[in-house]
């Protein structure tokens, strides 16, 4: 599986492209998607971004999606460009950096950089989503407004996971990490997740997604005893390589019946274990998603995460 289409809703707002032939909507009514074309240069993207800022009522913009900034497999994300526009985007609350499909640039090739600058520049940002992890860096920060943080990747560096664990995010309710595979730089270990699973710096967390992970089984085993679980309403282990081993550990651990939702779709469970998971938790009122089952034996002996390329 690859990511093949753009989001149509972001931060609860319908997405509007810029530039577009369509009539221009109110600046605060949509999530603006600014994207270059397949032959855009980074300079042209910079001009496009400036045109956007001076064309729409930038002061009213609430949500922004940065799509293809041009040769995104070679050119680092325009992080400084976005950060330096903070004073002109005072109401920006949601940012998606690198929203590209496989056809534009596959996820494991998208060149990111140090995204700390974005969090520093936008202290009121509430939603921050990043796609791609090549060159991705993050320094531990304290951010009082951030509610939703997501790193989508085919391989998330352990350094980034550790940095997330060291951040103070008192308002964060939604944390989503796509760990990916070590083939694409996803070298995070369960130990790297420990501060997150302890939840000390994440007092408001209700959704935890450790997704698209080759190490799903180890993650599941760690979650079985993780303090943070008690405050969650949604646990999302989808898109990864979850097998019977992980689910046995999960079911043998702390109670999960307080969850509203457990999502393990795209898994490698036997039919028996999938049924057991559904019945044990389903009867307790948990909405369990065991859709998109993969062959438990894998393909030619390999089990793949859903999104790597």
């Amino acid at each position: 599986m690859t990511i093949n289409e753009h989001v149509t809703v972001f931060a609860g707002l319908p997405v509007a492209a810029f530039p577009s032939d369509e009539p221009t909507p109110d600046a605060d009514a949509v999530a603006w998607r600014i994207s270059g074309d397949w032959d855009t240069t980074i300079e042209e993207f910079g001009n496009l971004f400036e045109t956007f800022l001076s064309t729409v009522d930038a002061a009213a913009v609430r949500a922004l999606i940065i799509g293809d900034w041009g040769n995104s497999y070679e050119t680092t994300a325009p992080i400084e460009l976005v950060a330096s526009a903070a004073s002109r985007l005072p109401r920006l609350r949601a940012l998606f950096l690198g929203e590209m499909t496989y056809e534009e640039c596959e996820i494991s090739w998208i060149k990111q950089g140090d995204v700390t600058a974005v969090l520093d520049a936008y202290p009121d940002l509430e939603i921050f989503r990043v796609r791609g992890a090549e060159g991705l860096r993050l320094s531990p920060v304290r951010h009082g407004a951030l509610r939703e943080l997501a790193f989508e990747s085919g391989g998330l560096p352990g350094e980034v996971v550790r940095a997330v664990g060291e951040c103070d995010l008192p308002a964060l309710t939604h944390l989503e990490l796509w760990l990916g595979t070590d083939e694409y730089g996803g070298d995070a270990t369960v130990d790297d997740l420990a501060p997150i699973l302890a939840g000390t710096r994440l007092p408001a967390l209700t959704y935890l997604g450790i997704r698209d992970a080759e190490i799903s089984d180890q993650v599941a085993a760690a979650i079985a005893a993780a303090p943070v679980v008690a405050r969650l309403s949604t646990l999302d282990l989808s898109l990864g390589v979850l097998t019977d081993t992980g689910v046995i550990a999960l079911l043998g651990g702390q109670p999960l019946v307080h969850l509203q939702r457990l999502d393990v779709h795209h898994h490698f469970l036997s039919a028996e274990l999938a049924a057991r998971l559904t019945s044990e938790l389903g009867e307790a009122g948990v909405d369990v998603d065991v859709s998109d089952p993969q062959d438990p034996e894998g393909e030619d002996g390999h089990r793949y995460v859903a999104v790597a390329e």
Partner: protein
Amino acid sequence: MGNPDNRRVAFLRAAAARTGVLVRQVVPWRELAAGTVTLARRTLVRVDSPGEDAEVDRLLRGATAPARHGEIVGLRAWYRGLRAALTRLAEAADRADALLLSPPDDVLIMFDKGACHAHLAAAGVPVPPALPAPGGYAELRAAMRAAGWARVFVKPAHGSSASGVLALQVAQGRVRATTPVELAAGGALYNSLRVRTYTDERAIASIVDRLAADGLHVERWFPKAGLAGRVVDLRVLVVAGRATHVVVRSSRTPMTNLHLGNGRGDLAQLRTAAGERAYRSALDTACQAASCFPGSVQVAVDLMFGPGWARHAVAEVNAFGDLLPGVLSAQGRDTYTEQLVALRTFAPGVACAT
């Protein structure tokens, strides 16, 4: 002109029976591939695909043995054979005062991707930019560097459907090719129904080098739009200047060809996503592409939308792309019936309209 046992011929016969058109004769491709043919006097001659017949393929290539199943071999020789056969067909048509509904010149351009690309570009049809045909992998990489392109589609100049096509990307010292080509031990190439990924540059180079011997056409990878979680493009059949049949082809890979296990997508959903203006504009482009082949009663255009739907480009133009079972025109006609009805008014060179 066809392979008599092929379903294409069966579909045409059924359509002829429905519309009251007399099928005077089916001239087997094996006859034409082997030598000269005689056509019935003052007839309209539908030229259908020589494909799916190992013996015709062997004859066109002038080879002694048929190709192994799925093997990509002798594409240039096949093209030369096609050119010679269609030249004989044109002569036979002259002798019989018959009209070929797919003129040889049109078919030959459509089976030469480099020539076809140039032909369309010269007429102002939007196509992705192309590189000069490289003689091998090293030349390809050098040309990509010179052009500043990291992602290209590499296509055999004389291939059909996704046969031998590679979606190639190179960046940050990595290389990846996504393709239905299977590299067998000993270096032979096979088309498979499974799209696979190569990251070993030696394997990729050996595939490209082998394909290059029979001619390549390389275009910059035009990113395609997505719909319902899949990559999509359109197959638009243009009959006598009108876009009559449209199929959404959807895929989880960059190759949307339907024989690769890809599904047909939802056209209504695509029209909604694209917006009616972008959709109509794309159909206009399909007609414009078809009008570059004014002597052909039908031309099948593969048309790609960019990710935001606003842009589109023509990926391929197919001489024999009208095998679209179950797809009906606005008038409720299948592709074969539509063409037979169009023959009542078809005049080669008719203007284009949607």
